[in-house]
């Protein structure tokens, strides 16, 4: 979810290699460069979009968002140096279990989902590297997939536009055996969530192993991450409202995108949406209402669902709305089978 109310001030960016931050002391097997082109990894390998097109990378380890900010930083060279060393220490702290601080991860409030951004995307769901994301469940030695007869464990919950990861952190103890994946377009925010999860794992051994985050454009690449019917829950909490009519096609809920969400959800799976913008609330509800593959979940069922309470309370954006005494608009729908008339 895009942090609409957050200040859009641009602080000097901090550049670092994702791999070093995320995988500080991994065994050598885990830190080997991934075998397949385009495999999801936090290592600073050249991303596949560029490889495919043969375009040399300008700033190793940076994504387009941070390179867009480079110009801003050039005006303030002194502070950049000071702040990046600051960021380094922040990284070191999170490894030892201290939570990362949001002020070091300030990013733009909005990101254009229509732009052709360049970051690694798994070629297909089979290419998604579970070992890297869920090392507790996929021990690096055991070949990555779960052992023996049981079918391999897959991600079941997806938080689309996870923002600073509040919902993932809230859900993790409720469903300790369910793998959850946050998807966020802004790379700095993703970076923050990565650090947050690592810090939580370090300070609570054995917990928060079931949540992870990827930097991706879920509106474009959702089928690259999830197979048909793989998910049981999808979350769209406080998405960017895109008020202008011209920009409505950037909204994360639309009749066309719901086709893809219906594809990724199993029959009976639930899609949760919430917003504090009435216009957007109406829009999301009417899209879901009009879509033949979704049906409303009755109110009494919602009251029993422990997840529903988290929608407005767990996320940073939700807390902000509550603090300001704002109203929220919720739409929860179930994936149903198509009835042929």
């Amino acid at each position, binding site marked *: 979810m895009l942090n609409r109310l957050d200040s859009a001030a641009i602080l000097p960016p901090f550049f670092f290699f994702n791999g070093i931050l995320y995988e500080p002391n991994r065994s050598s097997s885990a830190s080997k460069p991934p075998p397949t082109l385009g495999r999801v990894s936090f290592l600073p390998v050249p991303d596949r979009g560029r490889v495919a097109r043969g375009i040399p990378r300008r700033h190793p380890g940076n994504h387009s968002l941070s390179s867009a900010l480079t110009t801003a930083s050039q005006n303030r060279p002194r502070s950049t140096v000071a702040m990046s060393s600051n960021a380094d220490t922040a990284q070191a702290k999170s490894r030892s279990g201290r939570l990362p601080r949001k002020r070091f991860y300030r990013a733009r409030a909005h990101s254009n989902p229509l732009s052709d951004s360049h970051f690694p995307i798994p070629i297909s769901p089979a290419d998604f590297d579970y070992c890297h994301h869920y090392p507790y469940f996929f021990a690096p030695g055991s070949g990555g997939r779960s052992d023996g007869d049981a079918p391999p464990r897959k991600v079941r919950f997806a938080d689309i536009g996870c923002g600073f990861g509040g919902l993932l952190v809230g859900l993790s103890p409720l469903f300790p055996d369910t793998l959850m994946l946050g998807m966020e377009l802004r790379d700095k925010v993703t970076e923050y969530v990565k650090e947050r999860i690592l810090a939580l794992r370090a300070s609570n051994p054995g917990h928060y192993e079931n949540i992870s985050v990827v930097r991706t454009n879920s509106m*474009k690449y959702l089928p690259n991450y999830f197979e048909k019917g793989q998910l049981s829950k999808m979350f769209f909490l406080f998405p960017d409202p895109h008020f202008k009519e011209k920009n409505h096609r950037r909204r994360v809920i639309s009749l066309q995108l*719901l086709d893809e969400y219906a594809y990724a959800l199993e029959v009976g799976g639930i899609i949760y949406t919430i917003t504090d913008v009435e216009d957007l609330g109406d829009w999301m509800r009417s899209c879901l209402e009009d879509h*033949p593959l979704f049906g409303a979940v009755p109110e009494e069922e919602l009251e029993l669902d422990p997840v529903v309470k988290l929608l407005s309370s767990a996320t940073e954006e939700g807390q902000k709305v509550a603090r300001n005494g704002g109203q929220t608009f919720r739409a929860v729908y179930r994936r149903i089978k198509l009835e042929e008339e």
Partner: protein
Amino acid sequence: MEETTEIVSDGGDEAAPAAVTMDVENGLIEEEKNMDGEVAPALISIHPFEKSVVVAVGSELRLFNLEGNCSVSLIDDPSGPSHSDAIRSINFGPSGKFLASAGDDKLVKIWETSSWHCIRTVSADKRVSAVAISHSGQYVAFADKFGVVWLVGLDEDDAKQTKVDKKAVPILGHYCSIITRLEFSPDERFIASANRDFKIRITVFPKQPLKGAHEIQSFCLGHKDFVSCFAFACPPGCAHGFLFSGSGDSTVRLWDFISGLLLATCEVGAKVGLLQYNGTEDGYPPVTDLCVSSDGSIIAIAIQSLHGIVLLSCGFSDRTLSVAKVVTLEDNYFPTSMVLSFSKQRLWMVMGASNLPTLSTTQLPTRIRVMSGFHKDPSDYNGHDPITLEDNEIPGGKKLLSELQGSSDVTMEEAALAAAVKSSMRNMLIKKEYALERREMRKRNRNDRKRR
């Protein structure tokens, strides 16, 4: 045809003063125009029973009636506009009752193939990149540059009464990715769409499709670059059939499209040994077109910068896909589009392009070649090549060529044409990467900024 050329020149005159007003950024704009004003490759399509053959180059549709051995003039819709910009897609559909043409002028025209009247002109919101006709001939689907697929109903009975309120309806969308091809599956249960984000989406084509096609059957994921072409094949004894796809990653892949499972991959570019320098790095050239006979026995591939075609052989049972034969033509012949006539087992190829910066003539030259003598068993090509027909052996002979090529002798232009055509497909389909300053310049000239 005279009408359409007039419109082209009109458009050019209008565009010229607009370009002059931009003073400072002129250089950059100019550069951009040259890159964006990509050449539009010529297209060829053939009636399913080889009754007629059509070539599209620029905004022109050139037609030849093979049955009557005569040229055909199209009778345009008097109420609607004519094609005025590059045609990007033409399609006869499996029944051959209609021909659909569409392109950069945001028009979809549907022609009735017995009288060659334009029975419908549909105005799209965006440029149209692909068009397909359903097997029953009941629906025409087209895809625009936003990645939205629209559907038009063609019910003949009530066409007259409800012509007005029958607008195209959006039925599905690839999120902001240009759709490169659109095709119905042979049993019409599915509609397949490929985009330049390496995806092929197989969508269930519902019984009441005008309400939208929301159920996705599968995604065929495996290509690492844009998908330029795909075709269905249904070998005897197979329930659903298979899907072949060609891509900018220089591979052809075989799919079980019901499950989205990748069955086989053939790295055509590497196999043929076509390493080339593509601007920044060595790489294999993209597969630009692909023709498959309905039983899958003939698989012909066009690769950019190969002066000829590649024939593949596919073992459907053991899931293999390999290069059977490379058939080369004369040095300067690079087919931009090909089509296989199933009934006569001939492969029709065309080379040509519009928007050529180097050519000053108003004539848009194209060159047609026809190949025949394909073997039933593709592994048996040794010492038995398909034959490239001489100009006078082509059905319709010189008459056809002069009609479809624009002139009977285009050899003069061939070198220039070949040079332009060589990189056309890649330039058209790659995602463009702009330098930072260029991006800033583009932002400055954005429409919403200008209005302020």
